[in-house]
């Protein structure tokens, strides 16, 4: 337990340092292992490819389907990553050690969430480029599109982290997680798809911005609910 104090350079009671420490440790493990990141990456590429094959080859149809496909791919990817976030912890039976660390349990939630976002952000940028190639997505708006994906990804991951933690010790979690998750995050996907469509079809900025606001509100609600409920269900 002594090592843990190193990662907590007196940044108040929240333990922001701990959160970063946990996220970076997970990231390092994930990068060293390679299998996890590589499989996520391959999954993303293959999925976009298959979707393009299924919906193509007309340019118009592909272009119209792009926002939906992008968000579905992102949703699957985030589910995959959230399972990864707790898989090693359970394999090595270290989850209890983490939860027993004095000073609340919220930081475990935020650490796992941060780890997912650190992986999800580059991967969603990559997804944008892949979609640009396969779905004729215009890249002029890549930055605003990326912002939309980041906002939606955060909302998605905040619910996914909570559920993945909850289900971490259960058998059959791979089936249960998407089942519980997808019905709950419909609002995020809807708002995300609409914002993306708005950007691609050149709607006025005010209209897209209102979707961003909505996404931001969802993020805050889910993040707060997840952080509040996580310690309650992870006890013991």
């Amino acid at each position, binding site marked *: 337990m002594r090592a843990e104090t190193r990662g907590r350079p007196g940044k108040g009671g929240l333990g922001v340092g701990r959160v970063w420490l946990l996220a970076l440790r997970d990231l390092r493990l994930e990068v060293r292992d390679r299998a996890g990141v590589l499989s996520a990456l391959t999954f993303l590429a293959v999925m976009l490819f298959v979707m393009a094959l299924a919906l193509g080859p007309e340019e118009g149809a592909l272009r119209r389907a792009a926002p939906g496909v992008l968000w579905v791919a992102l949703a699957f990817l985030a589910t995959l990553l959230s399972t990864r976030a707790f898989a090693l912890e359970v394999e090595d039976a270290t989850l209890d050690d983490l939860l027993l660390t004095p000073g609340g349990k919220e930081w475990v939630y935020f650490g796992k969430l941060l780890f997912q976002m650190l992986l999800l952000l580059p991967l969603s940028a990559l997804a944008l480029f892949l979609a640009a190639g396969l779905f004729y997505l215009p890249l002029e708006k890549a930055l605003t599109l990326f912002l939309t994906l980041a906002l939606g990804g955060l909302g998605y991951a905040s619910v996914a982290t909570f559920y993945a933690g909850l289900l971490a010790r259960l058998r059959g979690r791979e089936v*249960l997680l998407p089942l519980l998750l997808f019905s*709950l995050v419909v609002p995020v996907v809807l708002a995300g798809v609409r914002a993306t469509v708005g950007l691609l079809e050149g709607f006025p900025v005010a209209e897209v911005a209102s979707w961003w606001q909505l996404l931001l509100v969802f993020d805050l609600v889910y993040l707060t*609910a997840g952080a509040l409920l996580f310690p309650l269900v992870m006890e013991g």
Partner: protein
Amino acid sequence: MLKAAHPERPDALTWAFLGLGVLLLPVGFYLALSAPPDVNQGYLARIMYLHVPGAWLGYLAFFVTFLYSLLYLFRQDPRYDRVAMASAEIGLVFMGLALVTGMLWARPTWGVYWTWEPRLTTTAILFAVYVGYFLLRGAIEDPELRAKAAAAVGVLGFINVPISYMSVKWWRSLHQTQSIDLTTGKIHMDPAMLQALLFNLLVFTLLYLGFVRFRALVAALEARKEEA
């Protein structure tokens, strides 16, 4: 809705709710069938005497699940969990009834079984969430963890209702010009129709209360059997 320490059989209140509900059900049915037909929809409007109470009680039941899930999370008393579970189960039945009758009504009225109207979509999402709730309960064997996990889903699922409604409303408003207002024709209601509707609502509420108390008792007996 909580009971004494170790009840063996339903108490007087449960029997009263159930008995009154079952007794009054034919009366409600009679009132529904004798209410005047709607000017625009004719006899079809009578499906509302089943549909509206079903939907209202579905939402009420999930709200009760939300409340008792919160209580469970803070107090850790298994009785709260049993009431939450019972209410969710009854709510799923009522909500399913509302969905099916709604579809049967929509086909001759709108020409389609389903439309992506905010209220419909939100209800469908809610239904899916509580189906997940029971799948989750079925997957966990440890009673304490099961209760905690279910409570979390019960809370998150209900918080999600206004969020879904808002997002679907906006989603629809962008591209769809045709919009169907469910409330048309129902605000100006004939007193006889309103009476029949309110009476049926009362009957369904009585049945709901009786069912929940009954189901919670059955769950308590099951839990005791599991422990023994």
